[in-house]
Each structure stands twice: as structure tokens, then as C-alpha cells.
């Protein structure tokens, strides 16, 4: 790879913003208004004029179109409008990478990447009524009662746990870490609602092997970041947070329908994680803090393994709560509370938290935070990931 074909150090995040996070259906604001509020909050954080924005990037068929946003904000020149294909949160990091790519290649100067959700207005991922007939992938699943995301992913998790002897306690540790960090984060939906081992063990099954606390919340809100070129980044008031690497994609035939992925018991980072580390020029041991998308805890388990933090046979030992907690755990994980306990902004809140870690402003700051990893949407296709870093590691 030549140096011109990389994002490393060429684009920086200079602003982050989010709305209040709500339980699903509880936002009084329309979804589009939430998007605008998050974008304006990110602009205020960066102290940038919203009219300087010239691009928007999102994922998972975000309903809040770039052209409507540009129109509503009176933006004089829209230069890029990018949507990452694929559902769920697989694109939460790709939205950042795609926006950054537009800046690095001179197509745009100031790009917002964002996600906005008002599930009371538009319905939830976790319920599927009102469908009479179905074709394609879902036709092989829904008639057998496999309708919602936890039902679609439980068998991947079960097979991985079977293959490698993973204990339920490993999944529990991931949930406990998210909830622990949420107790320090006033933005978190689960702030003031701690989780302990007994409460996890006693919680109902959603679908085995997922207890209630293995599953993400569903929420309303919006989150956004502002990106500019590295050359301009130091003109802004915040400590610049540079993109060291971004990758997205899918392994061989991962999306083969009716659960026919060649590497079935996988989070689908087998090809995407090496791509990311190659661009960033770092390895797993250089990463100080990780935000890893918890659609389900087992997705985090597999994603961390595929990103090289431990081997499958080490999972039961590594995934102990103490190892996963900021400031000094071996691998501080989901330090805002993540999808389980901060807010399920389809993973975009994880991007904001990684920015805060590199800035040094997290509510659960990790000691080693100059290189921060974000892992998006495990077990879907395409997935994406992102490594952010401080000026020190450029």
C-alpha cells in the first residue's frame, strides 16, 4: 500500500455531539430534529459554523437524508452524501471512514458522520409484526420463529461457545463491564442502575445463550461527529483526534443465506481486522482502550478474538470483569456503557466515546488512551472498524 492510499493521520475529528439519550419511543422530538440537534451540538463542540459543513455520511439506511439536512441547515455547498450499505450497526465505523475518505481525497472539507433514531416514530428492530409474506434470507428463518436480531445471532454464538468451551460467565463479564462504566456516565440510560452477577444470572432468557443483559437496548436519540483535514485540525479548540485506520467489509460468503456462512461461528472480522491494523500501522498490543459493539455480548467475544486480543481458548480467563474496567484493566472495554447501558445509537455512541478517550475526557478514562479501537456491528455483513489516535502516535 503506498502512502497516498491510506487515511492514516490525514483526517481528524474536531467535534462530537449527541442529544439526550432516551428509552425507545420516549423522545418527544422527531427523528430529523434529533439529527439536527446532535449535529449542532457537534458544531458547538468544535466551535465551527454549521454552514461550513459540506458533507454527510451515515449507515444502515439512515432515514435522515443528507440533502434534507443540507437544506434545513442552509448549507451553501454540499460536496459529499455517503451511505454505507448494510443493516444493523455494521456500518457505524464505515460512516466515519467514508466521510474521512471524502476529505482525504479532496472531495469535501468538513464532513459530519451521524446516526439518528426515533423508534417510537419508526418502529424497532426487535419486533416484526405486520408482515404477511417473505422472500429471500428471511423466508428461511421467520416461518421458524427466527424473527428478531437475538434470534438470528444466537446460533452463531452457541456454535462458537461449543467449539471453544466458552462459559456463560465470559458473556456476563462483558455485560458487567458496560454497566460498570455506565454508572460513571450521566448520559447513560442505565446511569444509576447497576448490574451485578446475581442480577445477570437471575435475568430471563431472551434466547439461549442470551440473557436479557446480553442484549442491547433500543433507544431514541442522535449522535454526530465533525471531521476536517489534519492540516486544519489544529485550528479548532479541541485536541485533534486523528483517524489512524478505517476498514469495512466481509469475509468469504459471510452473508450466504440461511446461515450458510463459510466461517459461521464468527463476528466477520477475519479479513477486516487485519486490513484495519495494516492501515493504522499498529497491532492489538498497541491498543489501549476498546469500544466493541454489543448487539449481543457474544458478538463482542468473537470480535475481540478476531482483533487479536486473546485466543479462543484464553477467553474464559481473559473475560473477567477486572480485566475490562477503566482505568487500569488489561483492556478497558465499552467505557461509556456502550450499547448495553449508555445508549443503543446503533454503535455511533461508541465512536464518540473513542474520541473522548483519545481527548482524555471520558467519564471512565483509560490510562492508555492514545490509540483507541472501535469495532462496529459484529456478526453482520458488511462490518466495519476504526482506530483513532492522538498526535503523539502519528
Amino acid at each position, binding site marked *: 500500500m503506498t502512502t497516498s492510499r491510506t487515511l492514516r493521520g490525514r483526517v481528524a475529528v474536531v467535534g462530537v455531539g449527541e442529544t439526550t439519550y432516551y428509552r425507545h419511543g420516549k423522545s418527544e422530538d422527531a427523528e430529523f430534529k434529533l439529527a439536527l440537534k446532535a449535529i449542532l451540538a457537534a458544531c458547538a463542540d468544535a466551535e465551527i459554523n454549521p454552514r461550513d459543513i459540506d458533507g454527510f455520511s451515515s449507515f444502515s439506511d439512515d432515514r435522515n437524508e443528507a440533502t434534507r439536512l443540507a437544506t434545513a441547515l442552509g448549507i451553501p455547498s454540499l460536496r459529499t452524501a455517503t451511505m454505507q450499505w448494510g443493516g444493523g450497526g455494521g456500518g457505524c465505523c464505515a460512516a466515519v471512514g467514508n466521510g474521512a475518505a471524502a476529505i482525504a481525497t479532496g472531495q469535501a472539507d468538513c464532513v459530519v458522520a451521524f446516526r439518528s433514531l426515533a423508534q417510537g416514530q419508526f418502529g424497532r428492530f426487535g419486533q416484526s409484526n405486520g408482515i404477511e409474506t*417473505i*422472500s429471500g434470507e428471511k423466508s428461511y428463518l421467520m416461518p*421458524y*420463529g427466527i424473527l428478531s436480531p437475538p434470534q438470528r445471532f444466537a*446460533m*452463531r454464538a452457541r456454535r462458537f461457545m461449543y467449539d471453544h468451551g466458552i462459559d456463560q460467565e465470559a458473556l456476563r463479564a462483558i455485560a458487567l463491564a458496560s454497566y460498570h462504566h455506565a454508572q460513571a456516565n450521566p448520559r447513560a440510560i442505565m446511569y444509576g442502575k447497576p448490574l451485578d452477577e446475581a442480577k445477570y444470572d437471575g435475568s430471563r432468557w431472551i434466547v439461549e445463550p442470551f440473557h436479557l443483559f446480553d442484549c442491547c437496548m433500543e433507544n431514541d436519540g442522535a449522535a454526530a461527529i465533525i471531521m476536517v483535514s489534519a492540516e486544519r485540525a489544529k485550528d479548532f479548540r479541541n485536541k485533534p483526534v486523528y483517524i489512524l485506520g478505517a476498514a469495512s467489509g466481509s469475509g468469504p460468503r459471510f452473508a450466504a443465506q440461511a446461515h*450458510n456462512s463459510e466461517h459461521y*461461528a464468527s463476528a466477520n472480522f477475519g479479513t477486516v481486522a487485519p486490513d484495519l491494523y495494516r492501515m493504522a500501522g499498529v497491532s492489538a498490543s498497541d491498543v489501549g482502550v476498546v469500544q466493541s459493539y454489543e448487539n449481543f455480548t457474544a458478538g463482542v467475544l468473537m470480535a475481540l478474538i478476531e482483533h487479536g486480543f486473546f485466543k479462543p481458548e484464553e477467553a474464559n480467563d481473559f473475560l473477567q470483569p477486572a480485566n475490562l474496567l477503566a482505568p487500569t484493566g488489561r483492556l478497558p472495554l465499552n467505557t461509556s456503557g456502550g450499547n448495553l447501558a449508555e445508549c443503543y445509537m446503533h454503535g455511533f455512541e461508541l465512536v464518540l466515546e473513542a474520541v473522548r478517550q483519545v481527548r482524555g475526557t471520558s467519564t471512565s478514562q483509560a490510562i492508555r488512551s492514545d490509540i483507541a479501537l472501535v469495532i462496529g456491528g459484529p456478526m453482520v455483513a458488511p462490518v466495519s472498524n476504526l482506530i483513532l489516535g492522538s498526535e503523539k502516535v502519528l
Partner: protein
Amino acid sequence: MNQSKFYLPEGLPIPVPESDGLASVYWNGLREEKLFVQKCTHCGTWQFAPEWICHHCHVFDPAWVEVDAIGHIYSWERVWHPAHSVLKDHGPYLAILVELHQAGNVRMVGNLLGDPMQEVLIGSKVKGIFEHHLKALVPHSLLQWRLEIDAI
């Protein structure tokens, strides 16, 4: 047909082939108690779910081959939380992923018939049972599975 013969309550989404007819042979086959899977006549690669091209050699229109509805449990889940109104108060149910060794290890999803609280062992041999929904809005058939030791 008596409703009690169905593993799950009626009213779940009904499977139909795509408008381009891609999976017609599969769904029509189940109606006749036959299981068809694609097998490329050029390179011999098995393929499920169907596609218009062989993913291995890129010859179009892979052939459909009838295979025995016999397989082994590759993974499983016991579902507790209802994600559809017709499943409310239905209680737990079992879904399994079945691997067909006689068809290039393609996999398909179904329900494991019998006690929903039974212990499920990966690797167990299962036999396909065709479940006909003839009075549904769109008549269709599903492929369910029973442990081979219990098979009628």
C-alpha cells in the same frame, strides 16, 4: 389439517419465492415432500440458499438436485422472548441449524420437534418432517426436524 399439528402458531410470515422465481424449486419441492438443493453440474459445488450463479465456477443456473432430508444439528437455540404477536404466551421453542453432509454440508434452519425443554446436543442426527400449511393465506410447506432416534 389440525392447527395442533403445527410446531408454531399460525400467523408468522409466510415464505414465498422471490418475484424473480429464484427459490421456486425449493419451496415447490417442500409442498411435494421433496428437498431440493442447488448443485452445479459443471464443478459439483453444492449451494444453499439458491443463487443464479455458482459461487465457485461462475456457471449460471446451478441445477437443483433432490437430497434426503437427513442431517446433523450444527447449532441450536431455545427462544423465550416472543418477537411476534402470535408467539405471545406460546412459551419456549427450539430452532436448530441442520447440516446436510450428503449435500456438501449446506445448512438449513428449522424447528426441532418434540419437547421444547429437551436437551439439545450438537452433532445429533435429525430427520426432516414436512409441515404442510395448506389453509394458510398462501399455502406452503415448512421443513421441520425430529431427532432420528424418535423419527417415525
